[in-house]
C-alpha cells in the first residue's frame, strides 16, 4: 500500500512500481477514503486499508511534517515493513518514531531513502528499475544515486543484484547498515554484499565488526563517500557531517579493512572490485 497515494509523488512512483510488477493493493489519503486511484481503492486510514486489502508493506510519500505520524500509524495497524521515502523529517520526530517502533513488530527502512528493490521481482521505492539486473549481489547504501551507480557497475562487471536496500542518510533511521548486512548474510539468494556508507555516525563500523564476528561468511566490498568532506559541514544529507575523529571516511575505511571488508578507494572501482573478489 501507498501512504500519500493521491499526491503527485505518490501517484508517479506508484505507477512506476505497478509497471515494475509490485503488487500494490491500495493506498491511504486521509479525506479521500472511498474513492479509487490508479484503479485501486483509497482509504482514510492505514487500519482500513489493512483490513480491506491485507496489505503488509507500506511505502510513504507524505510531506515531512506528517511523515513521522504516517510511520507510527502504519506500525499501529500491523504493517510489517514500512519504507519511508520522505526527506526532511525533523530529528525530534524521528526520536519519537524510533522509540515507538521498539514495542512494535515493524521494520522501518529510511526515511530519506530510495527504498528497497529485489531485482526483477518487486520494487518498493523510487529507483530506476532497469539499472538493477537480477543476480546474486546485495547492496546496502545510505545514498540513492550512488546505489544506482553501484548496481550499474556490478551489472557491467558481469554480475547482478539480488536485493538493494537504501537505508537513508538521516541521523536517525529505521534499518541500520548492520541489520541490512545481517539480512543479506541469511539470504540464500545473496552471495556477496556491497556496503556503501558515508561520513557521520558509527553504523558502518558497527556493521564491519559484525561481519568480522560472523567470520566474513560472505565477502563484502565497501566504499565510504566523503573522504574530501571538510569537518563540521553538513554535506547534503542531514546525517552526513563529520563530528569527531572516528566518523571520518578514513577512520571508517580503516575499521572496515581491519574487519576483512574489501574497501575500495575510488567509487569507480566498486563493480570491478566485486568481480575480482567473486573470482577468488
Amino acid at each position, binding site marked *: 500500500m501507498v501512504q500519500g497515494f493521491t499526491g503527485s509523488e505518490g501517484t508517479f512512483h506508484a505507477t512506476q512500481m505497478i509497471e515494475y510488477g509490485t503488487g500494490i493493493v491500495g493506498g491511504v489519503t486521509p479525506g479521500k477514503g472511498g474513492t479509487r486511484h490508479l484503479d485501486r481503492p483509497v482509504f482514510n486510514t492505514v487500519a482500513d486499508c489493512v483490513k480491506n486489502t491485507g496489505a503488509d508493506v507500506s511505502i510513504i510519500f507524505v510531506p*515531512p511534517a506528517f511523515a513521522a505520524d504516517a510511520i507510527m500509524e502504519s506500525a499501529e495497524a500491523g504493517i510489517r515493513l514500512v519504507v519511508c521515502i520522505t526527506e526532511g523529517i525533523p530529528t*525530534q520526530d524521528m*526520536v519519537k518514531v524510533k*522509540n515507538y517502533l521498539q514495542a512494535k513488530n515493524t521494520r522501518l527502512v529510511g526515511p530519506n531513502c530510495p527504498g528497497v528493490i529485489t531485482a526483477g521481482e518487486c520494487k518498493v521505492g523510487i529507483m530506476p528499475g532497469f539499472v538493477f539486473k537480477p543476480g546474486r549481489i546485495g547492496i546496502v547504501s545510505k545514498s540513492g544515486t550512488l546505489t*544506482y551507480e553501484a548496481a550499474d557497475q556490478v551489472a557491467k562487471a558481469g554480475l547482478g543484484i539480488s536485493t538493494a536496500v537504501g537505508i537513508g542518510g538521516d541521523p536517525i533511521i529505521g534499518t541500520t547498515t548492520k541489520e541490512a548486512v545481517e539480512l543479506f548474510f541469511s539470504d540464500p539468494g545473496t552471495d556477496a554484499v556491497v556496503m556503501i556508507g558515508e561520513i557521520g555516525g558509527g553504523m558502518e563500523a558497527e556493521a564491519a565488526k559484525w561481519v568480522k564476528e560472523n567470520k566474513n561468511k560472505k565477502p563484502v566490498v565497501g566504499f565510504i563517500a566523503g573522504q574530501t568532506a571538510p569537518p563540521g559541514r553538513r*554535506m547534503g544529507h542531514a546525517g552526513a557531517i563529520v563530528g569527531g575523529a572516528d566518523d571520518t571516511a578514513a577512520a571508517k575505511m580503516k575499521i572496515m579493512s581491519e574487519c576483512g571488508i574489501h574497501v575500495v578507494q575510488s567509487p*569507480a572501482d566498486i563493480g570491478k572490485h566485486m568481480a575480482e573478489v567473486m573470482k577468488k
Partner: protein
Amino acid sequence: MNLHEYQAKELLKKYNVPVQDGFACSTVHEAEDAYRQIKALYGSNFAVVKAQIHAGGRGKGTIKENGINGVKVGKSLEDIQDIAKKILGGTLVTKQTGPHGKVVNKILVAQDMYYDGPHERKEFYLSVLLDRSNGQNVIMYSTEGGMNIEDVAHDTPEKIFKEWVHPSGGLLPFQARKIAFNLGLSGDAFKNCVKFVTNLYNAYIGLDCSMVEINPLFKAADDKIVAVDCKMKLDDNALVRHSDLTSLRDTTEEDPTEVEAGKYNLNFVKLDGNVGCMVNGAGLAMATMDMIKLSGGEPANFLDVGGTANAQTVEAGFKIILKDPNVKAILINIFGGIVRCDRVAQGVIDAYKNLGNINIPIIVRLQGTNAEEAKKLIDESGLKVESAILLSEAASLVKKAVA
C-alpha cells in the same frame, strides 16, 4: 542553522534558563548605552565585551588588526569604548575560524559574573544533543568547565557524565537531581542547577535544537547557576514549524556563493580545490569529490542539483561554480534514473550556450536512462565539452584536465 551567543541567550530566557545578562550592540555608541544599563542594573563597574561570530575559541582568539582578544573585560566606560572600537569591524581569528578569520559585526556587552560572595565560584560544562547510536537525546556534562570538551574527553574521560533521556517520559526529576549531585552541588546551588537543567532541556526540545552547549555553566559566588556562554544549533528540518526563528539566520556568517545557491534550491558547499562539480544526489556528489581527488585534482565544491537536473538548475550551477577563479575544470556527473540523460544533456548544451564563453574544460558524465543518446547530443553539439559514460572514463578525463 547556527545561532549567535546573544540570540541563543535571548531564546533561553524565554524558557526561564538563567543567563549572563547582556545587550547586543553594532556600534560603539550602543556599547556605551549597554554599559550604563548594566552598571545601573547590577551595580558593578565591570562588564565583558564578547565578539559575536559563529565560531568557538573567541576568548583566546585575537583580532588581526590590533591583537586584542575576542572576549575582554572592561572596568570603566572608557575601557568599554576602547574595547568595542577595537573589536567591532575587526577580523577575529580563532582556532576554529581558520587563518582568514571572521569579521565581527556585533558584540555582546554583558554583566560580569565573577563578583565576590559567600560561596566558591565554579565552572562546569553541560550540553544537550542527539546520540545517534541509540536515537535518544543525551545530556553530557562535566565538572571541568570552560575548557575544550574534546580535550577533557580525551585526557580525563572519567570526568564526563552522560544522562540519556527516554523519549516517552522526557527528562525526569531524579535525572536532573543526579546531574546536580554529580556536579558536587548542594543547598541553593543544587536547587538552582536542577531548575536550570530542566528548563534547558525544555528549551532544547521546544526550539527543536540539534545541539545546545553551555560552556561554562557557571556557579556564581551567590550560588546562582547561569549560562555564561551558549552555543546553539537548530535543526534545519524543523524550521518549518518555527517561522519566528528563521529570521535569526545571519547570512553574513555564510559563504556568499552558498547563500546564492540556496536561492536556486541548490545544495552547495564551497571548498578550496580546483575542480568544480555538479552532481545529482548527495552521496554520489561526495563520491565524485573523492574521485576528483584520486584523479590528482582537488574538489572546489560540493553541489547536489537534486532530482531535477534541467537547463535552469545546470545554468545556475555553472554560474555559481564559475564565480570561483580557482576552478580549472568542471565535472558534471549525473546518474539518470527518473530524470532522463538526454534531457540533462540538452540542459547542459543550452546552459553552455546561454553563458557564452566558458574558458575551462567541461567534462560531462551521464549514465542511466538514455545515456547513449545523451553522449551523442553532447558530442555533436560542437561545444568544447568532453563526454563520458563510465565513472572510470570521467576520472581519466579529470586527470587529463588537471595535468
